[in-house]
């Protein structure tokens, strides 16, 4: 049985009414995750995406969540205050059904890591750069059951396997390690 542990729960409260659609959150997120840090930016790599349809007054910042190998059996579609949102509009998954939350070149999944860094940031950067307070950071402690989390590399590999099959990935991997070492 898993152990019960104290865990810091980090929440970003999204107030869509306050969003002005500027996409500063996308800019800073992608800059932060560039290697080396801040050396470049590219909103297409951001782990937060603003769904923006100005003429329909739709502005929804959505955070990248878990990678999923298969899409849902059905789709959802929300209508709120008379505004119809796109299918899967609020879903955070990096999912085969769409190109959201994937690296533009490799297609590898992206996931918000709450700007994990050492030392820890006072607030996630998208929150810091959202001067309109559409994004507000909150944290609290909770007791949770410990679970093992796969590492980034593992998630990435898994998605490659889903896409190309285990054999192909293993082949390429072998080839790459040979050429890198040799």
């Amino acid at each position, binding site marked *: 049985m898993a152990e019960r542990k104290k865990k810091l729960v980090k929440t970003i409260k999204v107030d869509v009414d306050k969003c002005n659609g500027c*996409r500063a959150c996308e800019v800073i997120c992608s800059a932060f995750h560039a290697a080396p840090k801040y050396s*470049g930016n590219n909103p297409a790599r951001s782990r937060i995406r603003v769904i923006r349809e100005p*003429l329909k007054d739709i502005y929804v910042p959505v955070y990248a969540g878990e990678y999923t190998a298969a899409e849902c059996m059905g789709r959802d579609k929300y209508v709120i205050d008379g505004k119809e949102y796109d299918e899967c509009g609020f879903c955070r998954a990096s999912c085969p059904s769409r190109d959201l939350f994937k690296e533009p070149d490799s297609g590898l999944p992206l996931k918000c890591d709450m700007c994990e860094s050492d030392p820890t940031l006072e607030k996630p950067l998208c929150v810091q750069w959202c001067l*309109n307070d559409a994004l507000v950071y909150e944290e609290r402690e909770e007791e949770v059951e410990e679970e093992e989390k796969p590492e980034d590399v593992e998630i990435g590999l898994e998605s490659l396997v889903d896409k190309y099959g285990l054999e192909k990935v293993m082949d390429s991997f072998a080839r790459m390690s040979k050429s890198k070492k040799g």
Partner: protein
Amino acid sequence: MRYAETGFNLEIDLSRGSIEKVETAPQLTEFYLGGLGTNAKILWDRVPPETDPFSPDNLLIFGTGLLCGTPAPGCNRTIVTTISPQTQLMAFSMMGGFWAPELKYAGYDKVILRGKSPNLVYLWINNDQVEIRDASHLQGKGAVETQELIRQELKEPKAQVAAIGLAGENRVFFASIEQGRSSASRQGLGAVMGAKGVKAIAVRGTKDIHVAQPVEFMELCNEVLSYIKFREENYIPGVIPILARLGSPQEMAVHDEQWHTENFMWGNSRHRRRDYWNEEIAKAWMETMESMRTRLISCYNCPLKCGATISIPGLPTYMMKCFSKLTYTMAAMSDLDFGFKIAQRATEYGVDGYSTPQVMAFALELYEAGILTDQDLPGMPSENEERFYWLLDRIVRREGIGDVLANGTHWAAQQIGKGAEAYAHNNIKKHEQLPLKLGMLNPIYFLMYCTGEKINITQIEGQFPQAPFPTREEREAFVKEWFQVPDERFKQYFLDWELRGENSMPFYPTVEMCCDIVDWQERMHYIDDALGMCAGLSSFHLKPPYHIHNYPKFISSGAGIDMDEAKLTQAAKRYRTLVRAINIRRGLRRADEKPPEDHWKKRFPELEAKLLDEYYKFKGWNNEGIPTQESLHELGLDYISEDFIQRGILPEKE
């Protein structure tokens, strides 16, 4: 590796249907920065002065600013450059929004259009894939509507689209290019796009933009953000609301329009209504605003909210910003409800919100004066507001009198004759200006109006207060945290500036000080236009977050170009002079550099002549406003001297 810029331009020949991706020389960026600077260089090199604005040989350049696509807050301007059909001079209007960064992410700094497409097309730039696509099904469609239709057709909701409406297709001289909540609307860029047969340019990009020194650059960005925050919490006291807070004038946020409605002119820039504003009007306008404005919105990567979505029951939604909130209302002597409604149609047609209302009011003035008659205006409704809709429809379709009016008040008056010229009274360099008529000559503004080559006062003013503050204490308080000045002497100019007495207008600031002040104000706008910065966070404002002291650092750490204040000042002077040279080659001379005759009641011809004499000298121009060989040499622009000598514009050196 290129930093901040991509190092590639997209060259599109519409006559031949060819598309080329061309690498640019990094030296050009060092010399002219980017945006306006390099746009001007291309225009000088490739568009000979005889070129007609609508000829296939004219270029239409969509240039991104050097820092667009980097994390620099508010840096999102597209600088659109061509030869204007209205002024016949170089046009360079800017648009905010989301287009420029998207183009950078697609891998290009500029899109350069030449030639002319045989049928209406649109461009689809999707990273490395660039296509010229048929747009015949979009003919006559609204500029806002078109953007949406293209996104749907491409199944790419994230594409940013710049489009023209019917006015551009029909080459209305004041047609705009619309894009999201922004537009490039001055000087008829939309007409040139229409003449080239291009309905729209759609862009989608998913590539990286790099900066040279990431840590330094981010530090600068964070400083700017905290200063924006500070300024949003501390409005500047003693100035009108639109100057007190950052951003484009916050017309979408404010309800109190007493200042504009009582100080700006109504009709064809004629009537001042001193006691117009009252509680009842305030209430009615507030209700209109609250019922139609859905949300305040911003441009790319900017925390301010200068635009708004306007949804009027029964009409398609559109977006608006700035002073166009009032231009239609005031031209028609009507109210805000009318202003919002007609602006919806005007935005779909794609016309400039400054010129268009004045052109329509001008037509009605001519009608009242009997210069235009019922024969010229067959079928015009009798109701005032209806007349404005009617005229708008005629103009964008170039039907009947609309065909004449579509050329703007200057050209229309020439064509109509019968004394109509006197009614085209609010122009500079043949282009309609803000409807302002004032009393005492302001020497700083005199110079800005005369010599501005962006043809819009808001595109040159900003850094220095528009008027003196009443008391010394207020002035002292103002200069206290004024670190944006390039030199301490500017503080002294302001401290000694009085409302009355010896140190008041028009003879104070002195001619020398005026030159200095105007030069600074202009320089900051030119720097913005090369970097792609919004003037609302920079040159348009007193005490802005971007200024001459932090800009060199932004350029060094962003673009990797070694820069300091002196070098930046020199670079800005260089391409500013290049812009002048293009216009000089197209015939601009001192005689063209004057404000509207009736702009001020009290004029001082001798002082005005002296101001211009001295300012020209200050700028390194001769008495006709032509850059001298010496000053061109100093800027590394000898090729301009050579051209000028060859054309007999400058005399051969003895």
